[in-house]
């Protein structure tokens, strides 16, 4: 086995055993942070399925919010199990994505324009959630109706370890899908489209079909992430689950980690969440806003100084040191 695989297997084993490692009184908190990292990494991966091909969406909050609210509303009002509700949520989101993506692709809305159209979609969903306050609770948000005790049917568990394993599986599934896309025909086609849409079409690539497929996949996965998050936190709120703020956060994490590599979104998400948590612990309730201020400042610095993401920049640095050495040895 190659060293990379060994390291991967070791990391996986560590993650699998995670909840049983001795962590003292911090256990609940550490598990909570890890679950968040896994779920948001999954969402970041879903975003990067599109983002890496130049479809930079600033509206993934919309898909997240649709997923989270659909499942929550179906459960609260119709007691529909999240297992079915989640599927319904993902299906609804895919349909919405389709409605937006088709004309975008058809009328060649790309680049800045695509980003701003998706941003508008995110705002529409956020505002609709607020406007329909009779069901959704408006900007105050909505709590998931508690089931009686632990319930697999309701996807509600008192023990965080259950959520931990569930999100670990979700995260792995996300990685697997990312990997499959990376190895597929779609990747070659999408890269060609990202480079030059007209040229791609002229060699027989069905531009619209590929773009829509990728968008639907990304949106559906994001909705599933929203469902998972809603079930875990059991509270939904338009500002944390829709709109420009959360959309930007997802993109930040992914770009920070590097959107062209399998683990990039995870690395970026883990870092931003860990950073946010750290700052929150440091400042506590004393200086409200200070943690976020530093977070914003660091994000600007990261983007300026590590433009290709942490993963990508590390790779560049390694390449710079390794390549001349190889050339030199080649000459000898």
């Amino acid at each position, binding site marked *: 086995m190659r060293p990379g695989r060994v390291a991967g297997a070791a990391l996986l084993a560590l993650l699998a055993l995670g909840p049983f490692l001795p962590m003292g009184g911090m256990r609940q908190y550490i598990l909570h942070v890890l679950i968040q990292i896994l779920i948001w990494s999954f969402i970041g991966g879903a975003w990067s399925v599109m*983002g890496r091909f130049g479809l*930079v969406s600033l509206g993934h909050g919309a898909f997240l919010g649709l997923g989270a609210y659909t499942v929550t509303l179906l459960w609260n009002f119709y007691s529909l199990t999240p297992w079915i509700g989640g599927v319904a949520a993902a299906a609804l989101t895919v349909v919405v994505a389709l409605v937006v993506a088709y*004309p975008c692709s058809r009328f060649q809305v790309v680049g800045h324009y695509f*980003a*701003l159209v998706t941003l*508008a979609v995110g705002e529409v969903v956020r505002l609709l959630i607020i406007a329909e306050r009779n069901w959704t609770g408006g900007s105050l948000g909505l709590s998931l109706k508690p089931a009686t005790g632990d319930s697999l049917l309701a996807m509600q568990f008192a023990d965080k370890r259950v959520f931990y394993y569930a999100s670990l599986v979700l995260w792995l599934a996300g990685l697997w899908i990312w990997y499959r896309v990376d190895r597929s025909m779609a990747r070659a086609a999408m890269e060609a489209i990202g480079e030059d849409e007209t040229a791609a079409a002229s060699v027989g690539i069905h531009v619209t079909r590929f773009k829509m497929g990728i968008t639907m996949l990304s949106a559906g996965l994001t909705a599933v992430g929203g469902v998972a998050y809603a079930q875990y936190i059991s509270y939904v709120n338009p500002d944390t689950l829709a709109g*420009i703020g959360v959309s930007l956060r997802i993109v930040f994490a992914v770009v920070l980690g590097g959107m062209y590599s399998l683990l990039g979104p995870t690395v970026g998400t883990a870092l931003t969440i860990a950073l946010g948590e750290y700052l929150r612990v440091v400042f506590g309730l004393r200086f409200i*806003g200070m943690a976020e*201020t530093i977070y914003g400042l660091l994000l600007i610095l990261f*983007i300026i100084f590590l433009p290709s993401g942490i993963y990508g920049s590390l790779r560049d640095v390694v390449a710079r040191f390794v390549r001349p050495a190889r050339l030199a040895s080649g000459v000898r």
Partner: protein
Amino acid sequence: MIDPIFLLEAAVNGVLLGGVLALLALGLNLIFGVVDIVWIAYVDLVMVCMYLVYFLVMVYGWPLWLAGALSVALGALLGLGVHLLIITPILGKAPVNQLLATGGLLFFLQSFATFLWTTDHKTVRLALPILEVGGMFLSFTRLIAFAISLVAMLGLWVFLRRTYIGTAIRAVSQDREAMALMGADPQRVYFVTSAVGGAMAGLAGALLIIQYSVHPFFGAAFGPLTFMICVLGGLGNMVGAFVASFVMSEIISIGGVVISTEMGYVIAFVVFIVMMFARPGGILARRG
């Protein structure tokens, strides 16, 4: 059925709102047209200027016009600062990174404002009368803000048409490299543009604080709308942005009266999305 007088009042209020929106959109669009970067945090700069006017007027008792003038100066300074510290290092980088760098500024300004000034809404109250015109109630404050925005936009128009540097700004937005061949340092043109765009944010801040209360998330409320107006008008197209401001403000204002405030915005955004498909180059663009 809604009394037609309410609709008329909403339409007039829409025009008044459109004036201030146009000021915002023109400032952002000017920068976009020249520097080719969308400042996601543009309206957050406005928010900072609103706080400045609030504190100068309500806490230190300055006259409003003087506070407004200082707000314009602060806006210009912020514009320059953003360009120098954030934009310059990322010029020519991937568009995602450009969006995110100014997006980071958005987080920074929002949370720093929360830290400094809490999330309380702060208002500058002007003791100006409400006018009654043919059964409609119109705020005198809004009329003044509208008039000042119009004058400012006229000033911008003259600046861009009549001065050397103004014409150079328009030329750079059409062909950056050709303008360098004319002897214009692109960096210098960017500075002037960012300062002018920032000054317009400062002025908009002074005009907005007398109509709306300010809070750290003010930028989140008006920001997306402002980008959409710019895109709807055609990125970099000043006349288009001007027209689009009034289209959007009418939809919001009338939609707000007929259905609800949020639905007014929802309809405006949906119109934006649909227009993007129908006329991707902006409402004034020629087809094809």
